[in-house]
């Protein structure tokens, strides 16, 4: 397990992380969501030892991360970082050596990863001569070249075209199949929903939701009911007990039911108004879950991951 346990960090009076806790099992992908400035990058930097936490620690296989363990982490920083004038192949080999491969193994690994990410014929070019998409691939290769046991990627998909996104996603899924826990942050929630086994939502430095996407849905499901009653007068559901009207437009009504709300009573009331063309629990998208989680500042109700 890769465990982030109670990470807390303040810059002066500004508390940027408050008891951030989650765990990523080997061979799973964890999507890290949150608004800008929520603290995702700080969390990852703490894992890499670039920022010191005020409290809490990150553990891999039960062992707190130290310099030696961190060498087995593949990292992709938010702000991309490569030597602009250094050749692709040499650069990859250099990072492989810094992670502990000997010179020969590093050279082989550099060739292999350049080839696998479609950079085979660009190995001799300086990084600055490559397109942004290709630079991104080199960046990923630099994270993978040392065959890391853990991958921590800060916004790996930003700035990629759809083809690049697919290529990167395939690459990450392959790592996951090989048993590597992958943590990545992203604003592309559809992508997170598609790829990740579990998701964490960070808001103002606190984890407001952690769990698998179905788990998060279940938590929200049972609350949102969509009823389409074309002939109903406006406000037809307003008087029902335990029911709040979220939106109502030409009979297309979104209702939030609390614990005392009875879905069957809603159905009965709907039938009384005339035709009912749609009646279903609404499955929220991750985007909606995210909006809701980030919007109200509740205490984290972590669902067991």
């Amino acid at each position, binding site marked *: 397990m890769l465990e982030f346990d109670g990470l807390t960090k303040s810059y002066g009076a500004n508390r940027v992380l408050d008891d951030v806790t989650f765990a990523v099992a080997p061979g799973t992908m964890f999507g890290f969501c949150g608004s800008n400035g929520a603290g995702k990058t700080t969390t990852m930097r703490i894992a890499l030892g670039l920022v010191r936490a005020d409290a809490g620690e990150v553990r891999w296989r039960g062992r707190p991360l130290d*310099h030696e363990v961190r060498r087995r982490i593949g990292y992709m920083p938010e702000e991309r970082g490569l030597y*602009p004038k250094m050749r692709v192949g040499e650069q990859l080999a250099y990072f492989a050596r810094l992670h502990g*491969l000997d010179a020969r193994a590093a050279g082989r690994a550099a060739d292999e990863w350049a080839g696998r990410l479609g950079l085979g014929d660009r190995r001799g070019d300086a990084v600055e001569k490559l397109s942004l998409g290709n630079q991104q691939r080199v960046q990923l290769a630099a994270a993978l070249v040392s065959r890391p046991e853990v991958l921590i990627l800060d916004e790996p998909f930003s700035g990629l075209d759809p083809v690049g996104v697919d290529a990167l996603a395939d690459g990450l899924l392959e790592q996951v199949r090989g048993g590597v826990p992958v943590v990545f942050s992203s604003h592309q929630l559809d992508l997170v929903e598609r790829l990740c086994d579990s998701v964490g939502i960070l808001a103002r430095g606190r984890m407001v939701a952690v769990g698998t996407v179905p788990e998060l849905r279940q938590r929200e499901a049972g609350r949102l009911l969509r009823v389409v009653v074309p002939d109903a007068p406006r406000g037809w559901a307003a008087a029902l007990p335990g029911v709040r009207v979220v939106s109502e437009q030409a009979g297309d009504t979104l209702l939030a039911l609390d614990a005392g709300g009875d879905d069957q009573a809603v159905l009965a009331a709907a039938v009384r108004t005339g035709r009912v063309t749609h009646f279903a629990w609404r499955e929220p998208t991750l985007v909606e879950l995210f909006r809701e989680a980030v919007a109200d500042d509740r205490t984290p109700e972590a669902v067991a991951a």
Partner: protein
Amino acid sequence: MSELRTPSSAALVRMVAGREVSSRIRDKNFIISSVVIVLLLLGVMAFQVVVNSGSDTSRLAVVDGTEGVGPAVQAQGEAVGLDVELVDLPDEGAARAALEAEEVDAVLLDGGAAPELLLADRDPTLEAVVGSAVAEVAVTGQLVEAGVDLQAVPQLGVTTLEGDDEADGQRVVVAIIGVAVLYGLLILFAQFVAQGVVEEKASRVVELLLATMRPWQLLAGKILGLGVLGLAQIVLIAVVGVTGALAFDVVSVPGELVSTVVTVVAWFVLGYAFYASVFAVAASLVSRQEDLGSVLTPMTILLVAGFVVAIQAAGDPSSTLATVTSYVPGLSPLVMPVRQAAGEVAVWEIALSVVVMLVAIAVVVRVGGRVYAGALLRTTGKTKLREALRAERA
């Protein structure tokens, strides 16, 4: 996996140093600057050779010379810094022919009652030298004839306070050239270090690097790598310079030359360690190459001041300014070699200066290392010195 080993600190430092060397050695600017420095040095020596051969030796043919007139001319010539080479020719005709053919610069016809000097062109120095030599020989002859005991004429004993003037002068010239090279290389390589630090910050690659190593390992590797390159370059320049000077016969005291050059190289090592560290730390405070100038200026001024004082010290090595500045860290690598070359520096003075410099380097590395570590990950704008120090402690 199993092939992964944790590299030791030394291995990491070596890797960083190796990358610096291999990327710099392929840099066009570096290659061009190296070639230019060597060419410049060869040019200076070639110029020396041309200047020396042009004016300082005169060939004088003496016909029917009075006994002793030749050596007298040479002695007089030496007094005014003119080498006179004597050529013996049998008669006036041969001498005139030699003069026409420009085989000699002048002919002294000393046979008749009135000695005569034939010249292709007027040459006031040679005229004066020959004139006084002839007069001296004549006066001596007449005095001897008159029975005057020449032993009674007091001989003037000459002692210079500065020791052997010519050798010292040469050493000082070598020291000035050496210090000029040293100054140029210090600026060049300290700038390389500073640019490298900013490049890593600007390209954010520093974040990847620091995930695998500590700041001091990165700093040490960078300074060592470029230092090795700088040392190689100054040694190359020294070897070319010394070899060239000996081959062209520009210097007369090879031993002194070599010792001065070795001194300069040794001071380069100390100066580089100091300036490279200071420049690296200053550079770590900014995140763009454009901001580099503003943080490097104070240190560059110190370096320029050292150079100016060194040139001034060459003229007056025992001045208070030179003496004091030869102990000031940062200035001493430029001033002390000149004072050493001029002589008159006791061993304890050199030792003191070296120790002060080493202490300064230790302080810079300690304090600077903390600033560097604290500022390295602040990749936005300019970091204040105090913030950087605080950040590291936090």
